[in-house]
């Protein structure tokens, strides 16, 4: 397995939308290196003949009747919104630029 570098963490932080300071990136790279080192043997345990388990007790085709159930009202949905206008969530510019 590849080492985790500070640049790797910076890339992961961008993917995860978490701003990090230089100090945080350096610290996180060190901590993650130790954790990744300790968990990398996982890939050596099971062979190709072992199927993956995604869910402890598999259920299939969980459906409900196609009828309208309880929903939140517009007011309830916006109750915790940081900002709203005209019954919708309001956010800053989606695109960068003037």
């Amino acid at each position, binding site marked *: 397995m590849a080492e985790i570098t500070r640049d790797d963490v910076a890339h992961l932080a961008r993917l995860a939308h978490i701003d990090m300071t230089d100090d945080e990136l350096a610290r996180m790279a060190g901590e993650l290196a130790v954790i990744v080192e300790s*968990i990398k043997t*996982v890939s050596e345990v099971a062979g190709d003949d072992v199927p993956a388990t995604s869910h402890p007790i598999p259920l299939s085709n969980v459906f409900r009747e196609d009828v309208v159930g309880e929903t939140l009202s517009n007011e309830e949905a916006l109750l915790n919104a940081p900002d709203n206008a005209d019954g919708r969530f309001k956010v800053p510019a989606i695109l960068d630029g003037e």
Partner: protein
Amino acid sequence: MTELIHLSADALAQQLAAKQVSAVEATQAYLDRIDAVDGAVNAYLHVNTEEALLVAAEVDQARADGDTLHPLAGVPIAVKDLIVTKGQPTTAGSRILEGWQSPYDATVVQKLRAARMPILGKTNLDEFAMGSSTEHSAYGPTRNPWDLDRIPGGSGGGSAAAVAAFEAPLALGTDTGGAIRQPGAVPGTVGVKPTYGGVSRYGAIAMASSLDQIGPVSRTVLDSALLHEVIGGHDPRDSTSLTDPVGALVEAARLGQVEGMRIGVIKELQGEGYQAGVLTRFHESLELLRSAGAEIVEVSCPNFRYALEAYYLIMPSEASSNLAKYDGVRFGLRVVPEGAATIERVMGATRAAGFGDEVKRRIILGTYALSAGYYDAYYGSAQKVRTLIQRDFAAAFEQADVLISPTAPTTAFKLGEKLDDPLAMYLNDVATIPANMAGVPGLSLPGGLADEDGLPVGIQLLAPAREDARLYRVGAVLESLLEDSWGGPLLAQAPAVPQITGRNR
């Protein structure tokens, strides 16, 4: 009112039914206790005084009117602040949800309301349930009532400490890698992780969806069974909810029987890394069960040693996906940075300010494990290990009706001791994680005090999926034998909690 708060939930329910005490008196006694000691313990993030007293008064009125009531009507309860409640804030122990009010109730909360149990408030936890000590709460750590300088376990340390410090007779917890059972063990309480899907997760803020499970926290095995029957059962709003009936858990706890049962000691969950005092108490419990007619057998689960590693890939992977929704758009904190504030920059600034270090660590780890090129080696491999752990359980349950181990390798450690060493912190969950990986139910009950530090030791029982009743059947016997040997409940030996008030909620 000291006697009142020391009653078990079952005993309190009986006194309520016999009108020897009113629900308002009981609820007020707990609110007074919270007022007196929670400044020291910090088990609660929010105290729900008005609503709790209102519900209690309604119960008293209904009882006076001769209405038919649920057996636990009027018995107060605390709710882990990872479970959403209408009319009270839910923070998940995070700054990112500070002040957030859920527009709906979790299914388990609806069930508490239907049973008319007054909700005392919301209990402290590691942020988004990520931790084993509650030190990762954004609102300060909870302290262990046995020693205020020590951790109460985690993530559900608030629920466990509240019950141990007699600030609630019952509480709800959530268990992803042991967060009900391990905090049950260290402050000397009972905690149960039901079979995955046995209790609805609707309204439990998700950490790792394939591992998370809501369950009861209490001071006795019977009390957990009583609460488990209230919250269990199928819920169409949770697509992973099992359609099986809850089962006769209370009856199993009341009967309590181990004669002729095969109890399997898991070879891999003892020995190296386990504190001597923990193992001494563990072996005493085995002797007691043997004396009661159980057959003690040894089982081997060789793949359990990979469980922790696989868990620390699956859990962060699922958590990093589940926590993507905290982006400052629809709810929760929004931080607008200086300059050209695009939504993308708002997200980055919001999540930087709103999440604590452990949450960031797990999101980054999960993002790494799921990224292109690593997915098969990490997440894919961890899911295969999950299959191997399930096979180990299946083989062990061929030889034994229930399995037994210490709940945690050590007693409560000191606050701050493992904060800078994430790996050492993760090792606390080594005995509890396999159950989450396989979806099987587990129960932790107090097994006595370790000789070297006088702190509680937890004994864990595990049963096959959908056989939760076996935990109560065996747990009740062991509890009764142990209490006979101690001359009363273990919590009666706990030192008095210093009365420190002065925190306003």
